[in-house]
């Protein structure tokens, strides 16, 4: 991990401006991503993980405002780029596998042509028809689809096939980073697993970095090296997947993991996470998790805990992380 | 068992409503009471959504304005402010029209052709024995607005404002009757088609296809030629055409969505008869969309009436279309702004009220269809 990081998200703060006031969607989030690394971002819906993903491509909603912070790709701050330069980075450097890939395809164009569109934009010199067809066929084979399907329309694909094709499209311009936002949520469990394994295999082969985003910690655990837990717009814990799984330090991470049943570990009582995520129009003072936190002290409601490095590559934002029980008898499944 | 299941439609209402309370001994009665309570509450909720849309409120205001116009003549005649001999929209006549004083400057009889221009120009109303240099008073009909006739008079000396008001009455009568007929038929046809499916469904849907495809006005013209059309005949025919036509298709697809809801299955399992299920479960859930289509039907009914009157194919006492037809056939429309009081009131009234119902319909659409709402 001595090479310079591919992507650095540095104290990013993003608000949504609404009629009722500013919604604090991303609050002081920092992480780095290296070549070939697989990072997972986990959290409840509305915790800001998709907002971060969209910010990386600068496709945030119209009412989003970056208050401070930087997103650096190979040292270049993406947030400062003019729009047309940013466009050149999209897909070429950072591609995305979207949430609900069912609707990621425009129904009126052939799947192959929609991939071709990305190729035509980013390859210089432009690929000839034969080269493009050849490339699309290779991509289809890589994700386990029949290359002839490239001439079909999206409605002729099944859900799993569409998702595979989305992955093929994401790979089409050899991006250095792929963001997979809930890549398998809409699919049935077996297809889910197949696709995740496929994605993992391709990632290893091509050596690209990948950011998985999911509300389901179990899905992510299998395919990531590093995992970040998000709560109410903040990154509360970041560390090696094995480490976070075995010894979560943030109370939220601890409760999240205890509320997830383990298939392979011993039987235990599941601890439900009580309460509702906070309203980000008016987030709680101090630590945003303190109203729901069983370990909260008075300090938590007043002072915001900083991100503290507790071990090599393992950081946590909690005043009382030492109080969190050491083991929850949950084994990581890398 | 039945009672509990019957109460299920309530479960589909917004969750902030408290669960309905029902007494098991009076099922059908309490059903409607619950439904009424739910309706009142969802009405309040929807009204809030509707009010957020300014355009819809503008539409509502315009409709209110025309409603006042429609009521006005009753009040004006009853209180004696208006005298029906003068202000009746059809047989009224202004006895003392404004006059224009003109001096006779030419020989009245053309010496070559021997035509007496007195009669041609002055419409026989001038005494015969006038001479060059004398002054004559020429009655001005149509007359521009004055204190007695706020919107002037038409070529026959009738009050335009009174005609406009009676036209509003005709428009409301026609529009609302047509809309009610449409909604009753379309809701029934849509619900029945969706519920039973099969041959009945195919029949109604093919009929609807046909009615959508054939130009509405062409049908009205032909039917108008066969039967002597009165206003309410027209309303019923328009109601039938749109009720069995496009609206039925839309309501059927809505009814199909309702049909697969669990409470319909539950009612069937509990032994509800077909009629019972259709009328107590499907129809009430199709209703909101029906109201929406009522608005659009009013627009097309008013426009249809005006077009038929304009073509002179309708036997009505007075209507906006008739006012335009009269002004047009007598050549006043092409004279431009000189006769503006014949030009604008009726044409604008038809346009405005159509726009108003259309806008209210669109605003209601946003209430019924959450997808259209601004986020």
């Amino acid at each position: 991990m001595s090479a310079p990081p591919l992507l650095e998200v540095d104290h990013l703060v993003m608000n949504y401006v609404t009629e009722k006031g500013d919604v604090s969607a991303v609050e002081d989030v920092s992480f780095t991503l290296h070549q070939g690394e697989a990072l997972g971002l986990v959290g409840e819906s509305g915790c800001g993980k998709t907002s971060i993903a969209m910010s990386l491509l600068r496709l945030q909603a119209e009412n989003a405002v970056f208050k401070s912070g930087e997103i650096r790709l190979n040292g270049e701050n993406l947030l400062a780029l003019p729009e047309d330069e940013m466009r050149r980075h999209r897909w070429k450097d950072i591609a995305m596998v979207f949430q609900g890939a069912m609707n990621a395809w425009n129904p009126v164009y052939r799947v192959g042509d929609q991939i071709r569109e990305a190729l035509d934009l980013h390859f210089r010199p432009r690929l000839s028809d034969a080269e493009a067809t050849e490339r699309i066929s290779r991509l289809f084979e890589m994700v386990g689809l029949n290359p002839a399907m490239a001439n079909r329309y999206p409605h002729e694909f099944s859900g799993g096939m569409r998702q595979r094709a989305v992955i093929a499209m994401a790979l089409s311009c050899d991006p250095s980073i792929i963001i997979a936002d809930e890549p398998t949520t809409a699919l049935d469990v077996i297809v889910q697993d197949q696709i995740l394994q496929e994605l993992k295999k391709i990632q290893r082969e091509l050596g690209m970095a990948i950011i998985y985003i999911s509300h389901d910690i179990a899905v992510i655990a299998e395919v990531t090296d590093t995992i970040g837990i998000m709560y109410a717009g903040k990154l509360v814990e970041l560390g090696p997947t094995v480490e976070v799984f075995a010894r979560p330090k943030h109370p939220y991470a601890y409760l999240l993991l205890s509320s997830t049943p383990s298939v392979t570990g011993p039987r235990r009582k599941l601890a439900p996470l009580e309460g509702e995520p906070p309203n980000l129009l008016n987030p709680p003072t101090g630590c945003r998790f303190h109203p729901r936190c069983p370990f909260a002290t008075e300090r938590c409601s007043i002072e915001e805990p900083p991100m503290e490095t507790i071990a090599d590559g393992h950081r946590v934002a909690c005043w009382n992380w030492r109080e969190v029980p050491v083991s929850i008898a949950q084994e990581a499944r890398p | 068992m039945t009672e509990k299941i019957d109460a299920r439609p309530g479960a589909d209402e917004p969750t902030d409503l408290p669960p309905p309370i029902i007494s098991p001994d009076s099922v059908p009665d309490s059903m409607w009471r619950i439904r009424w309570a739910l309706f009142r509450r969802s009405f309040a909720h929807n009204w809030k959504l509707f009010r957020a849309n300014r355009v819809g409120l503008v539409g509502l205001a315009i409709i209110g304005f025309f409603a006042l116009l429609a009521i006005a003549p009753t009040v004006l005649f009853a209180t004696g402010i208006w005298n029906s001999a003068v202000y009746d929209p059809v047989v009224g006549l202004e006895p003392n029209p404004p006059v224009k004083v003109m001096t006779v400057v030419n020989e009245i009889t053309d010496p070559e052709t021997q035509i007496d221009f007195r009669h041609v120009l002055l419409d026989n109303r001038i005494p015969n024995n006038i001479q060059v240099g004398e002054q004559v008073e020429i009655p001005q009909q149509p007359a521009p607005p004055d204190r007695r006739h706020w919107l002037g008079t038409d070529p026959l000396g009738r009050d335009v404002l009174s005609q406009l008001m009676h036209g509003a009455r005709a428009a409301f009568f026609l529009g609302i009757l047509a809309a009610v007929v449409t909604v009753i038929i379309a809701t029934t046809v849509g619900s029945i088609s969706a519920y039973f499916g099969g041959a009945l469904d195919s029949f109604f849907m093919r009929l609807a296809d046909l009615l959508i495809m054939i130009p509405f006005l062409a049908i009205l013209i032909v039917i108008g030629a066969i039967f002597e059309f009165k206003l309410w005949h027209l309303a019923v025919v328009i109601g039938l055409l749109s009720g069995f036509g496009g609206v039925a298709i839309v309501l059927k697809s809505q009814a199909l969505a309702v049909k697969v809801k669990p409470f319909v299955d539950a009612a069937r399992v509990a032994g509800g008869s077909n009629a019972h299920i259709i009328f107590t479960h499907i129809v009430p859930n199709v209703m909101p969309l029906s109201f929406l289509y009522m608005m659009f039907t009013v627009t097309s009914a008013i426009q249809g009436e005006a077009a038929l009157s304009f073509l002179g194919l309708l036997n009505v006492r007075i209507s906006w279309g008739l006012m335009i037809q009269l002004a047009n056939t007598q050549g006043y429309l092409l004279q431009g702004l000189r006769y503006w009081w014949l030009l604008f009131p009726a044409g604008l009234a038809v346009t405005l009220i159509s726009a108003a119902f259309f806008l209210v319909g669109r605003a209601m659409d946003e209430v019924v269809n959450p997808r259209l709402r601004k986020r």
Partner: protein
Amino acid sequence: MTRYVVRRLAQMVLLFVVFLTVTWFLLYALPGDIVKQKFAMNPNIPPEARQVAIERLGLDKPVLIQFRDYMINFFQLDFGLSFNQYPRKVSDIIAERLPRTIVLFLTALVSYYYAGFLAGKYLAWRRGKRGEMAVTIGGVGLYTVFYPWFALMAIWLFAAELGWLPISKFLNPDEWRNAPFTANQVFIRLFVTVLAVSIFMALVVLLANRIRDHRPRALAKVGGVALGALLFVWYWWGTAGGALMRPYAGDIAEHLILPVAVLTAVNFAGIMLLTRSSMLETMREDFILTARAKGLSERAVRDKHAARTALLPVTTSLVLAVATVIDGGILTETVFSWPGMGEVLVTSVSNEDIPLALASFSFIGVMALVGHFLVDILYGVLDPRIRVGG
């Protein structure tokens, strides 16, 4: 696709037969129908003449036989003789009027569909910006305006007041006194050349769209359209036949402008409003996000993805709009005294010229059905889910 076309065609033919049947029952077979009233039971006609009329009209035959004769006659295009323009054949009148209506109808349909779509597209893209409200209100105004009144206002303004365009009618009779052609010959020639040029241009644009690079594609489009325009100019100005006919064609074209413009203006608003809401809905779709993420420019996202997909619901609405445009056409023809099918329908109904009224109504029905069929095909071409699904 072939299966889709064949199925739609079969449906249309079936619907048309049903339509004719209903019309016939409405006009002939109902008790107290107009034909019996006018002839068989009219006390003003002497009994012998009445008997002759009954026999000639076949009213003494059983209903089903009457129906059969009527259907056979209809498909042999024999609609009898007009009462009012006796002894002209109804089929001749229809043949004369039909092209005039089709031109009015087609020109208006194509131009309002295209203009409305373009306007709606830009309107959606400018959502929330200034001017949007004004355009929307204007659109609603045009959409709900009382059509004949609007048309009369347009005539007053552009013809009577400004004098830019002729007031009404199909041509200026003074100029046609010594014309070496009939009006219909010129008219059809005009129609055919415009149609040929339009098809040529459409083909060029379609083919040009296959070119992948921007510059050559734009060049091919502009060149093709210019070539089409040049061919048109050459025919009417360069050839002897065209030059001879040109002043007359010009006269007809001049009379065509105002009715087409008015019909377009009114119908355009509906398409504009629909395109706008359809675009706004499409823009929330995930594939728009995908397109942006791929690095497409806003313009490419709008034109290639949002607009192309928003076209589908707009085309669906065109299915309903065919009937509305024909309705508008009937009123347009009446207001402008444009001698087409709609005007014939209204005058023949007013004059109780039954054979003509019936035939013109049926042909308006045919027009509507053919229009539907074409729009259905267009929809199939645009939506791969139908085209490929069969």
